[in-house]
C-alpha cells in the first residue's frame, strides 16, 4: 500500500515537471525577442543586453526553466511585458477570484446533480425523470458563454438581481455581494456539467440496481429506497466521483470563457487579455498554474477511485 502511494506520488512529480517544462518550452522557443516589444526598435545594444540580463534571457534554457520553476513556488514569475509589473503580484488577487468561482461552480454541480440524479433513478420513467432528461439534453448543448448570456438576460435585465460589470463595485461592498455576483457566472459554468453528471449518475444507479447483489438486498426485506440508498448508491457513486474530480479541469476552462461574459477579473480574463497582448510571462504562468490543477485533479480522481473501490485497494 505504502509502496503504491510512493510510486503514484513519484509519477505525479514526474508528470508535473514534464507539464511545467512543456508550458515553459512552448513560450520560450517563440521567434522574436521580447526585449524588442519592451524597449521598442530604437533601443541600443547596451540597453538590450542589460534588459536581457535583467530578465535572465542570457542564461541557457534549462537554467531558465529551473529559475522559473523555483519562481512558481516563491511567486517570483518574472515581469509582465505589458503591465511592467511582477507576474506574481499581477496574479495574486486574481487567483483567489477564479478559485472561488471554480469552487462555487463545483459546489453547484454537486448540489444540483446528485439529488436530481438520485431522483431520476428512483422514479425512472416518471414525470420528473422525463422532464429532466429533456432539460438535460438541452442544457448540455448550450455553450457556457451562451448560458452566461441567458443568465445575464434573465437575472440582470429582467429580474434586475445584479448588474453585469459591477464586479469591482461588488468587491468593494464586501464578501456577501462579492459571492452574490460570482454566483451567476458559477451557475453558467456549472449547469452543463451538472446536466452531464445527472445523466451519468442516473444511468450508473440504474445499472447498479440491475446487479445481482441488489436482488440479494431485496431478498432480505429491504425496501426499494433502502436498496438504493444503502447499496446501489455507494457503488454508483464510484465512477461519478471520478468524473467529478476530472470535471475540475473543465470548470477552470469554463471560467476562462465565463469570466469574459460577466466581466469578472480573474485569471481567465487575464489569460485572454495577455494572449491578445502577447504578454508571454503572464500566459506562461497561468498555463502552468492551470496545468498543475489539471494534473493534481487527475491524480486525486485516481486516488479516490482506489479508496472507494476495495477491489482496487490492494493493487
Amino acid at each position, binding site marked *: 500500500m505504502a509502496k503504491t502511494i510512493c510510486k503514484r506520488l513519484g509519477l505525479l512529480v514526474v508528470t508535473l515537471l514534464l507539464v511545467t517544462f512543456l508550458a515553459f518550452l512552448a513560450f520560450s522557443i517563440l521567434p522574436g525577442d521580447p526585449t524588442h516589444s519592451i524597449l521598442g526598435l530604437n533601443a541600443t545594444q547596451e540597453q538590450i543586453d542589460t534588459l536581457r540580463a535583467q530578465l535572465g534571457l542570457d542564461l541557457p534554457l534549462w537554467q531558465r526553466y529551473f529559475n522559473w520553476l523555483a519562481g512558481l513556488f516563491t511567486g517570483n514569475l518574472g515581469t509582465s511585458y505589458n503591465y511592467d509589473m511582477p507576474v506574481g503580484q499581477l496574479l495574486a488577487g486574481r487567483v483567489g477570484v477564479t478559485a472561488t468561482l471554480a469552487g462555487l461552480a463545483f459546489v453547484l454541480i454537486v448540489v444540483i446533480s446528485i439529488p436530481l440524479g438520485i431522483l431520476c433513478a428512483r422514479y425512472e420513467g416518471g414525470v420528473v425523470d422525463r422532464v429532466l432528461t429533456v432539460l438535460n439534453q438541452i442544457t448540455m448543448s448550450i455553450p457556457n458563454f451562451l448560458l452566461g448570456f441567458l443568465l445575464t438576460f434573465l437575472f440582470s435585465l429582467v429580474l434586475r438581481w445584479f448588474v453585469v460589470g459591477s464586479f469591482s463595485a461588488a468587491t468593494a461592498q464586501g464578501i456577501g455581494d462579492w459571492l452574490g455576483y460570482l454566483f451567476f457566472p458559477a451557475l453558467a459554468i456549472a449547469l452543463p456539467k451538472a446536466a452531464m453528471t445527472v445523466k451519468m449518475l442516473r444511468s450508473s444507479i440504474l445499472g447498479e440496481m440491475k*446487479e445481482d447483489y441488489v436482488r*440479494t*438486498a*431485496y431478498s*432480505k*426485506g429491504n425496501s426499494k429506497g*433502502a436498496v438504493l440508498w444503502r447499496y446501489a448508491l*455507494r457503488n454508483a457513486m464510484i465512477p461519478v466521483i471520478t468524473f467529478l474530480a476530472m470535471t475540475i479541469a473543465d470548470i477552470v476552462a469554463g471560467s476562462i470563457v465565463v469570466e469574459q461574459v460577466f466581466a469578472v477579473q480573474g485569471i481567465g480574463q487575464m489569460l485572454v487579455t495577455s494572449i491578445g497582448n502577447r504578454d508571454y510571462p503572464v500566459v506562461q504562468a497561468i498555463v502552468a498554474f492551470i496545468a498543475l490543477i489539471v494534473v493534481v485533479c487527475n491524480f486525486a480522481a485516481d486516488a479516490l477511485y482506489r479508496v472507494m*473501490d476495495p477491489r482496487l485497494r490492494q493493487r
Partner: protein
Amino acid sequence: MLLNVEHLKITFHDRDSRFDAVEDFSLSMEEGEVVGIVGESGSGKSMTAHALMGLIPRSQADISGKALFQGSDLLAMSRAQLRQVQGKDLSIIFQEPMTSLNPTMKIGRQVEDALRVHTRLAAGERKARALEAMALAGLPEPEELYSCYPHELSGGMRQRVMIAAALVLRPRLLIADEPTTALDVTIQAQILDTLKDINGREGTAILFISHDLGVVRALCSRVVVMRRGLIVEEGPADQVFYHPREEYTRQLIAARPTRKKLRGGGGHG
C-alpha cells in the same frame, strides 16, 4: 404445513408479448422437509423460486394462484407485508455467489443485513449473531472473515457467506436456487453437506432447485420434476431417480454424468 402452493402461474408481459414462464405449479412442504425441484433451464423452476420469494417485480409479470406460507398468502401480501417475511422466516441463496454479494461492503455487514432490517439489536449483538451464523454455514475463522471484502474470498466461501446471511435470523424455509451450479464438484459436495447439516441441526426446511437430479437426490427426500412451466413428475427422491415414470425424467437422468464420472472427477469431500 409450512408451505402450500396451489396453481401458481407466472406470466411475463411487455409491450407486445406475453409469455407463460410457469403455467401451473403446486407443491406442499412440511416443517423441516427438504424438497427438490429439477428441470432444464427454462423449465420455470427458478422463476417459481423467485416468485415465492417476492423477487419478481409486479410490473413485469402477472402472478396468480396461491402460496400459503405459515398460513398467509405470499402472493396476496402487500409489498410492506412481504418485506416482513423476506429474509426473516423465508430466505434465499442464489446461483451466482460471485456477483450476489455487494463488492464494496464488508462480509460482516452483509451477513448482518437481515438483522438490520428486521431487528433492533445493538451492533455488538448483531456481530455475535452474524459470527454464529457464519460458523453454522461452515466458514472457518468467522472473526477474520467478518471484515473482509467479497473479492478476497473464493466462490465456495462466498456461497457460504450467502448461506450465513440467509440463515442469520433462522428462517423456517430456505430456498436454494442452484446454489452449487457455479462451483466445482468438490466444493459442490461440501456445500451440500453443509446444507444437510443445517437442516438436521436447525430444522430449516429447504426448497432446493437444480438442473441436476443426482445432486437433488443426494439432499432431498422428495423431488418435483418441471418442464416448460408444468410439473412432469413428483415423488420420493429415490423412486423418481431409480424408477422414473416419465420419459422426460429418464432423459434428465441420462443427460447427467454417471456417478462414476462424478466420483472420478471430484471425489467425495
